[in-house]
Every structure is written in C-alpha cells, then in structure tokens.
C-alpha cells in the first residue's frame, strides 16, 4: 500500500463529521431497509433480478440491436460508443450542431465515469448538475462519495457556505431554507438550458424505453424543458422485456434509500413534444467502456447484474468508516473497487482492493446477487499474477507452504515469545506476526501445540469417527479449545482423530491473492483429512470450515487442478462446523443438557464467515440457551469485529475503530460473557477487552458447552 493511500485512510478515519454521518446513516439504513422489504421475499426477488440481468448481460449485442431498431423507429437517435472518447465526441457534435451554450444534467454515474462535465466546460459550455447532492459537490469541486447520496460527506454548514458564495448572500444552516435556495437557483437554469443530459436506470430492449428514477423531479425537468435530451446509458442497464422493469423497480428504491418507490419514475420511449410544440431531439448513447469484455469474463460477468442501488456501501463496515473519497475514483466501496478495476485499469484498484475485509455484508443485501467479496479476491489474485507477491509476503507464504517449517517456526515462536507473555497474553510477537500487537493484546503461542497434546488425550474406542481440523489458531494458540471439542464429541459417542499432516487452510494465502499457495494447502489438507474413513470432518473455526467446504474447490478450479476436484468435493460433504454438528447431535438425542442450570447472561457475536457464508447463527444461540445461559442480543451482533486475518496488520487504523465499536456494543448489553464460534474473533475481541480492562469473559461456544452437555 502506498503511503499517500495510507494517509488518506487515516485522514478519513479521523474525520469525525464523516464517520459520524456515515455511522448514523448506516445504522438507520438497516432498520429502514428491513421495513421497506416487509412482506417481500427478498431472496426470490433478487434471484428474479439476477436471472433477468444475467440474461441481458449474455445477450448484449442482441438487446442493443433490438433497442436501436425500436427507439430509432420512434425517432430517437441511438449511438453505440465503445470508448469514453467516442461518447464525448458525439455529445460535442450534437452540441455544436445545435449551438448549445448551456446544459442541465440529471444525475448520471456514466457521465462521472467519463468526466463529461470538465470536457463540456472546456469546450465552452455551461454545465449544471441539478440533483441537489450533485450540484453541491459540483460547487465544491469534488467527486461523489456515494452512488446514491453523492454529498453525504458534507455538513449543512459547508453547504450553506457553498450556496452563499453562489448566490452572494449570507445563508443560515436551516436545511429547508437551503433547499429553497437551490430550488430558486436551479429553476432558471432548467428554463434556460439548450440541452438536457440524463443517465438511465434501465434500458428496455423490447420497447426502446429508458427508465429514470429520481426523488427531486429534476430528471422530469431535464427531459421536458430543453429541446435536446441526451441519455447516456451504460450497457449494463439493459433488460430484455418491458416487464423486467417490475422486479428492478421493486428492489431499487427499497435498497437504495429504503423507499417503496421514489417520488418520480419516468419511462421514456421515443422523443416527445417540446414546450413549443416541436419534437424533441432524443439521443441515446449506449456506452460500453469495457462492459462487454466484463460480461465475457467468467468471474466478473455477474458485475453486470448490478442495479447501482448503493446498498453495498450502506452496509459495509469499512465504507462507513472511511467514506467514498478514499476510493479515489468515481465509483466507491466494494462495487466501486470492481468497477474501477474494469472501467479504469486493474492497477488502479491495487490500493483500494485492500480495504475489503471480506465480511460479506454487501453480498447479503445485494439485490443483483453480486458476490462482491469474491470478485475482490479475484482482483487480488489477478494483481498478484500480474505483479507477483511482495517480498515479505513471499517469505511468509513460502513458510506457510511448507508445513514442517511453518509448524516448527510457530513452535519456536512459543519459546521466543515467552519473555513477553503476561497473564496469558503476549505483547510482542516475534517473526512476521510482530505487527499484530498494535492496539490489542494477543494470545500467547501455546507452550505445547494441540498436535502434541492430542497424543496424550485418552479417548474411548468408539465406532463413529470424526476428523478434527484444528486450524492454526486452535493448534498453536488455543489448544484447550480442541480438548473441549474432543470431550464433547466423545460424550456423543464419537471418537476424534487428528490427522497430523493437516496444515494451514490456505485462507491467508487466498485472501492475499496467492492462489498457488492456497492450492497447495488445499491438496495437503485433502490428502491428510481423507486418509482415514471418517463420518465428519469437524472444525471450530469458521474461516477454516469455509475453506474446507467451499474454497478448496474454488481455488483448485481456478488453478485448473481439476483432478483434485472430486476429492475436494468429498471433503466438502463431510465438513461441518462445531455448532451445527452439536446441534444435530442434540436433536438426535445423542447429547443432552444438565437441567435447571442458571449460568448467567451472555451476548453472542456472529463471525462473518459463520453467519454469512455458512448461514449458521441460530444453532450456537439455541445450544447456549438450552445449556442455561441467558441471551441478551447486542446491537449489530453480526457486524465484523475487525480481525479479518492479516487485515488487522495491514490496516490497523481501520481495524482498531471497528473493534472499538464492537467492544462498546458488547459492553452495552451488560452481559458477563460474550460467546462466539471463531478463534480469530476470540483473539481479536479477547485482546481488545484485555486491553480495555472490562471484566467480560470472551469464550468460544464450545468452551461454554463442554461442562454442560451429557451423553445418552
């Protein structure tokens, strides 16, 4: 990461106005969005949208041709532009041919993408943005910081000052009054303008229609008052049929601003009459700018399903901390990272792709069903393929790739780390983990890793067998978690085996784009874990579970190592996370709880991978309550804790405030225990509370259950 980028990150994190505004907004958004979607089957709706958009994306040429025929038959001019330059040339020609001096615009990300305003102004025209937010940032000379709310980073004081300069008057910060100033100022601009430029939320191939969605009514004026209307539309906005508008119009306002519908939605099909009775000139520019190429890319074609609602930004824990300007480009947040990589250049996403902590919040709410975190990983992977790994990372991964060396170094760390350990926590870690201790304590590396302890554990000989996949953290930092797991499974009549050849799950390498390394890790683990015939492969770390269940297959597929896929699938079928397995055993009557226990209150922290990838969140809550603990839910229980593997090393300035927020939410419940199912979260939250000094126990669910369950 470049220094300037790091600086812009810390500046943003320390911008109190920004983080407070975004924080408040994202909290309210969650509640309002849920209300807006009441009574709607969101999964069915987004599948519907994804299917229709995916169809459009794979038939762009066809749809564009049909659109052109339809719209031109009605009198519109349709121009297919493959590059930003061609778009600009075309618009300039229309403007020159018609002696255009002033232009009014309705919000259009496509025009931001090609920096159209600058271009038109350089060519002697006056250009006014008329969406209030866009006008504000135009006056401020800034870029939009959010797709839907371009000026969300500004205060009313700043707006009052900007407007005051524009109208040469001192203005108060009364918001309705400021809006009135804009109404008055822009009204004359609408009436004077020679040309109106809009974007398009949808383009319907079947009918040649453009759909425009706004709240302010400016798009209606821009398409009504000037005699020329240019609609600049990215070709990802295509849908095939008129009826395809319905599901998108159902989701777009709900996801964007938690409204059932925006104030205005216009469906324009061919030119209409001008105010003087003449016919309007309607030009529709269909802009490609690498979209077709994107639609042919196996990994990224799904990005064409995006309906630009911005909800991925609203729920992103990183975006709400740093805001849009850190992303440095037109499109911001997770989706912005992807669009920047395509519409500009892969290299331009190098710094910003690192902002994603892979929490999966965006994926859960996206009405276009985009897997944003997965695409960001793919960007990482391609960057590594292009440029290679940094030297430090190379060093780390060459170690991780060699199980014996890796494990012996972790063992060594337990010895070298010893003088620095206090009360079970370590302040300074040796070796490449050294930066981990910024802002929070870390667990000591265990004196004896789980793999050694295991050999001494006495288990009854049982018929049913499960292989335990420990993962590095349980193996080397929290071996007692592994011991508890064995005790519990033994009670249910399951004998646990521990294949000694298991190694790192490959997640660190994968999340850094080092797929070769992750692939080798996958193969080593598949071999080790399938050596003996077991019924289950159980893990108590969600990141590892996700690796075993999903990522081994994906990684091997992307590396073309298809000969390993059947084995990877076999492993995936057997893999289960701890809470799901125990819940199953309880349901089957193989485990039960001691009755009448009153064990105190707990709150539960949902780990990102467990909740959103594995969809497990009821099981641990139910188990703990059955055991006799009382649940007090915390605010934003499923928000990331800021750990994110090496993320907390690379971007401590972001990780730390996310953790602080989590700690505050935990403390606010008043519970004496915080439970979770991920040793990584235990490390992050445990370390945070250790430095904070709050007397709250941080426990993995299995530690809380071990003494409470009984066998048959």
């Amino acid at each position, binding site marked *: 990461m470049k220094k300037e980028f790091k600086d812009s990150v810390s500046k943003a994190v320390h911008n109190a106005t920004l983080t407070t*505004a975004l924080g*408040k*907004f994202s909290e*309210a958004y969650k509640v309002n969005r849920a209300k807006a979607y009441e009574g709607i089957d969101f999964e069915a709706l987004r599948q519907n949208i994804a299917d229709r958009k995916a169809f459009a994306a794979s038939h762009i040429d066809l749809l564009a041709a049909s659109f052109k025929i339809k719209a031109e038959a*009605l009198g519109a001019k349709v121009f297919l532009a493959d590059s930003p330059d061609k778009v600009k040339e075309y618009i300039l020609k229309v403007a020159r041919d018609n002696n255009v001096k002033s232009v009014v615009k309705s919000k259009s990300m496509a025009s931001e993408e090609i920096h159209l305003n600058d271009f038109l102004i350089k060519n002697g025209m006056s250009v006014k943005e008329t*969406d*209030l*937010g866009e006008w*504000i940032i135009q006056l401020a000379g800034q870029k939009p910081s959010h797709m839907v*709310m371009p*000026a*969300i980073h*500004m*205060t*009313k004081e700043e*707006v009052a000052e900007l407007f005051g300069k524009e109208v040469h008057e001192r203005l108060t910060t009364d*918001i*309705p009054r*400021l*809006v009135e100033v*804009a*109404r008055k100022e*822009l*009204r004359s601009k*609408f*009436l004077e303008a020679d040309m109106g430029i809009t974007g398009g939320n949808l383009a319907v191939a079947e009918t*040649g*229609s453009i759909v425009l969605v706004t*709240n*302010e*009514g*400016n798009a*209606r*004026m821009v*398409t*009504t*008052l000037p005699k020329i209307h240019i609609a600049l539309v990215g070709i990802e906005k295509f849908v095939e049929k008129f*009826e395809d*508008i*319905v599901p998108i119009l159902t989701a777009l306002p709900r996801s964007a*601003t938690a*409204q*059932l*519908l*925006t*104030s*205005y*939605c*216009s*469906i*324009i*099909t*061919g*030119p*209409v*009459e*001008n*105010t*003087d*009775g003449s016919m309007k000139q309607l030009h529709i520019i269909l802009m490609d700018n690498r979209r077709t190429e994107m639609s042919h890319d196996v990994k990224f074609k799904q990005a064409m399903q995006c309906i630009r609602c911005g909800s991925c930004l609203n729920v992103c824990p990183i975006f709400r901390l740093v805001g849009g300007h850190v992303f440095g480009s037109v499109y911001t947040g997770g989706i912005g990272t992807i669009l920047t990589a395509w519409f500009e250049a892969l290299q331009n996403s190098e710094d910003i792709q690192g902002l994603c902590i892979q929490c999966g919040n965006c994926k859960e709410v996206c009405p276009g069903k985009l897997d944003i975190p997965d695409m960001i990983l793919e960007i990482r992977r391609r960057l590594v393929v292009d440029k290679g790994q940094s030297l430090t990372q190379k060093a780390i991964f060459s170690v991780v790739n060699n199980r014996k060396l890796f494990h012996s170094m972790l063992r060594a760390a337990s010895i070298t780390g010893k003088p620095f350990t206090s009360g079970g926590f370590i302040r300074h870690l040796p070796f490449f983990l050294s930066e981990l201790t910024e802002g929070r304590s870390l667990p000591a590396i265990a004196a004896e890793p789980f793999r050694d302890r295991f050999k001494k554990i006495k288990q009854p000989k049982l018929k049913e067998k499960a292989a335990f996949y420990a993962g590095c953290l349980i193996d080397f930092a929290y071996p007692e978690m592994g011991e508890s797991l064995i005790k519990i499974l033994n009670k249910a009549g399951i004998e646990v085996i521990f294949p000694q050849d298991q190694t790192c799950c490959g997640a660190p390498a994968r999340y850094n784009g080092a797929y070769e390394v992750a692939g080798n890790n996958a193969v080593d683990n598949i071999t080790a874990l399938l050596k003996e015939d077991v019924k289950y492969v159980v893990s108590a770390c969600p990141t590892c579970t996700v690796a075993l269940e999903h990522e081994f297959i994906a990684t091997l597929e992307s590396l073309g190592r298809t000969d390993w896929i059947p084995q990877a699938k076999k492993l995936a079928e057997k893999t289960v996370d701890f809470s799901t397995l125990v819940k199953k055993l309880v349901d089957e009557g193989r485990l039960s709880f001691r009755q009448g226990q009153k064990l105190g209150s707990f709150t539960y922290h949902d780990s990102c991978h467990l909740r959103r990838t594995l969809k497990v969140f009821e099981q641990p809550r139910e188990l703990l309550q059955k055991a006799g603990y009382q649940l007090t839910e915390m605010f934003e229980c499923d928000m990331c804790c800021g750990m994110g593997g090496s993320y907390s090393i690379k971007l401590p300035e972001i990780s730390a405030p996310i953790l602080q927020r989590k700690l505050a939410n935990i403390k606010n419940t008043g519970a004496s225990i915080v439970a979770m199912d991920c040793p990584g979260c235990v490390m992050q939250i445990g370390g945070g509370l250790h430095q904070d000094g709050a007397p709250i126990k941080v426990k993995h669910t299995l530690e809380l259950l071990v003494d409470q369950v009984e066998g048959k």
Partner: protein
Amino acid sequence: MYELFKTKAEAVGAEVHRFKTKADALDFIVSFLKDEGVSDAPKGYALWAEGPFLDGVDRTSLQAKAPGLKFQVTRELAADSLVGISEAGYALTDTGSLVTDQTAIVQRLVSTLPVIHVAIIGTDRILDGKPAVFAKINPSNSRYIAFITGPSRTADIERVLTIGVHGPKRLVIVFVDDLEGAN
C-alpha cells in the same frame, strides 16, 4: 382498495380526498383554489391541463367561481404558476403512487413546475401493484409514462428529508367515485 391507497399515499406526504360525484369534486377544487389564495395575480394563478374530466364542464362559470384559473397551458405560464391540475391514469395501492401518461407536454408542465399539483382520478382506477399496472400501460402508445409518488423531496443535505426541491411541494389527489356518470 381506496383506504389502502390513502394510507400509502399519505405515508409519503400526498394529500388524498374522495368525492362521490364530479360536481362534488369540482366544488372541492374551487374551494381548494380559494383557500390556497389562487387569484389572477402573477405567480398566484392555477393551470388546468386538458383531459376527459373537463368534458362537459362549463369552463366560463368555473373560471368565474375560481378567478385565476386558466386552461391555456404554456411553458411561461407553468413556470410561474401556483397550482397545476391534471388527471392521472392509475393509482397503485402498494406504493401509493399515481401512474399517468404524460406524452402530452401540458401534462408534464402542470405536474412539474407549479408549487402544488392536484391530480384527479376515478376511484375505479386503483390497482394493487406494479404487475397490474404494467399489464395496462404500453410504451408503444405512451411515450412518457410517469409514476408520481408523493411530492418532490430530497435528503441530500445531512440526510434530512426536505420537501419540494424541484418539483411540486404538495401533491393533492382527488378521487371521484362516479367519474363517467355525472354531468
């Protein structure tokens, strides 16, 4: 259906009224214009866009009762008007929206530029949702279809919801039960 629509439309800031006959609706509009101070003064007049509702209405006597009411809609007049009156095609219960064909320029002028927009619609034109309305509207004969949901609004300054940034500040919906029969 009507009650459901009213609830939804009011939730987004529209004002909803219902009358049995066309005559009742006309009386309401006349008194509404009076109450809003519509007069022949600059920036104080009202524009009524041509539509089926006006068929058979005696405009001269209407204008006598409501001074400042004009049936001639031009760009210049619309830019300075206080009230714009038009008719809507459908009302949707799920979102409280009006759906209307605004291909004719007068329709757009009276619903975008005035401070207050009054929309008249038959109570029998209420539909229960987008699929129903999409089965009825057809872009091959309506070039400009507008969905209107409440008044113009913005939340672009500090996320504070504020009414009337560019379009009308008020949307007044007038339902008429017996639209075809009366007069």
